[in-house]
């Protein structure tokens, strides 16, 4: 699924370059979690940001390697199945909060350390 992450990253960075969205790195992860659940992000990406799929794969978001403004750009004009979230639905402040929340989620670990996944 690495190609999905790569294409998502590229799309978001390109979009961010044109969005002019303000950068914020001081989001509130508690508020971010509430918004993440309330506006339905978890439906495709999972409560742990583990990813999932609808018609297309929904990439993992835990420990998202994008700045808040890139996440905002992606939210405003998502690709494939991603619903567009306009500012009246999810404000830039909400995006910063969601971004902060995603940084609190544990990302992937070494599967060899989990007996059920070790090969």
């Amino acid at each position, binding site marked *: *699924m*690495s*190609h999905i992450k790569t294409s998502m990253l590229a799309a978001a960075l390109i979009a961010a370059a044109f969005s002019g969205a303000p950068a914020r790195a001081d989001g509130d992860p508690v508020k971010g979690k509430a918004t993440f659940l*309330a*506006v*339905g992000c*978890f*439906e*495709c*990406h*999972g*409560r*742990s*940001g*583990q*990813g*999932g*799929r*609808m*018609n297309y794969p*929904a990439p*993992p978001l*835990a420990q998202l390697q994008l700045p808040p403004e890139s996440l905002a750009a992606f939210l405003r004009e998502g690709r*494939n*199945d991603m*619903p*567009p*979230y*306009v500012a*009246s*639905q*999810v404000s830039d402040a909400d995006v910063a909060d969601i971004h902060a929340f995603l940084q609190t*989620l*544990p*990302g*992937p*670990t*070494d*599967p060899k350390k*989990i007996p*059920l*996944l070790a*090969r």
Partner: protein
Amino acid sequence: MASKRSDTAAVGRRGFLKGAALSGAAAITAGEAKAVPVEAPKKASAAYPGPLQLAADTERPNADPATQTSSGGDFMTDVLQSAGIDYLFMMCASSFRGLHEAVLNHGGNKPEIIVCVHEEIAAAMAHGYYKIDGKPQAMICHATVGLQHAAMAIYNAWCDRVPMLAMVGNILEEDKRLPGAEWNHSAVDPGALIRDFTKWDDQPANLQHFAESTVRAVRIAQTPPMAPVFISVDAELQENPIEDREKLKIPKLSLPLPAMGEMGALREVAKMLTNAENPVVVVDRLARTPAAMPLLVELAEALQCAIIDVGGRMNFPSQHPLNHSGRARAAIAQADVIVGIEATDLWGLINAHSDRIVRSNRPIYKPTAKLATIGNREMLIKANDQDFGRYQPVDLAISGDGEASLPYLTEQVKKLIDDGRKSALAERGKKLAAAHASMIDAALSNATIGWDASPITSARMCAEVYAQIKDDDWSLVGTSVGLAWPRLLWDMKKPHNWNGGSGGGGVGYNAPASLGAALANKKHGRLTVSFQGDGDFMMCPGTLWTAAHHKIPLLYVMNNNRAWHQEFMYLQAMAGRHQRGARNTRIGTTITDPNIDYANLARSFGVYGEGPISDPKELGPALKRALAVVRNGEPALIDVVTDPR
């Protein structure tokens, strides 16, 4: 045709009932009109009620005899046995009481009756059974009211190109119907209800006609492209005596060999594949028999090409380094030759689509890529239901059975590969193996995210189940969790390790079709597991009673995300498009308030149940307990509260 429902008899019964009713009414009236002192009841005399009254109560008109020594149903039972029908999935109904009784008392319960509490369950069980056993079975229900219940499951089987013999009881002659329900439950042409999604149907007019049409139906159903067939069975034929058994003949069932594609065209495909730099073979409903998988492996390894298994059948080992189903888009984008073999929706796979305002699409494949198809899907298409998918232009389309065509295609490919080409192909194989390994590594890494979270992730749930069954002769059946994790991370290498999807996507398939598959696995002693979506389950929860009643061993792992989650996501997309109400979409899409207690529900049906389980640490021990029940020959259900995806 002999008849028990003669006009004389009908008048006689009506007259009797009318007389009885009038007598009762007269007695009440007399009692109300005149107060009579209460007396001790007189001792009945030998003459009471008198021989005339006794005769009136018990005698039947001579034209309507009470007993018989043979029945059409007996002969029908012989026909079903002769046609190889082992199971009759059914919910009892008076319109086929004649056949029902004959199966029990003439046939010795052969075909074996599997009792279902809903006609949709009966048809879906026949569907699931075939996809493990490879042998079509029969279901029967009322005409009209039963068939409309069964129709959804028959439609799934049609889309999945699965054969079954669907039957109804019907009272064809209107002067033989009793008042009331027998009129509501009869139809001139019951097959019309499902003719859009059955391959053939008939309503036999006599017993010889029944024999020939039933054997013909079973043969047509199993001739690729396979599909359900339908027989409407007249109640008079079932119930009444056979006039002359010696005159009735049961035709032998002979199945035609599936037709392979034209040999010259297959040689052309072999050239295309052999000369390509990056050929890709796409398969979906390819495997008709257990022989298909090794045949496809042989072709793939000869070519060292990527296989994309859409998953309509268990076509290709999941962990084979040439299995690139999990990176289909990347493989398609690189391909210079794409060959679809029984690939139901090739257009859907090789084009990208947008679920946005204009629903645009674009090819994923290169404009210069050559495309070919082998299969028989287009040999059975009807106009109304659009299950055939969008038209995909190709360079070479070959009509013929995919599995039957594989040996010759592979033989031709091998002939075209010289030693020089072999080394190039080996290099390609190494690159594909590396890409496959990367795909698996990425999946394993993603599976670790949220490993200890509650609700439980689908990756954790699947890993916990696999750990408990991997050393058994296991069979994963049904469609829930999208099968993404098992198809990526489980070692599926036997034909019964997985049995494909529902076909039509009709909700309500998973529970009964999984049970049908488990019944087929039972005689082989296989351990059957099904991930069961909660939304799907609530369509046919009574399936659990059949599982308990017939002691069919199966573990249902309830993937309980408390929603019709696909619809939840679609509604979110719609709110996003309309720029409003992103926080409202759980209304109408979620199954909460109250939460359903599936374990308790299972126990109420006589099935072992545990849950709800929200803590991932509790899941392994619960599975172990439930699997002990299943290994002991009985069904069990574990309710796992899961994260949506």
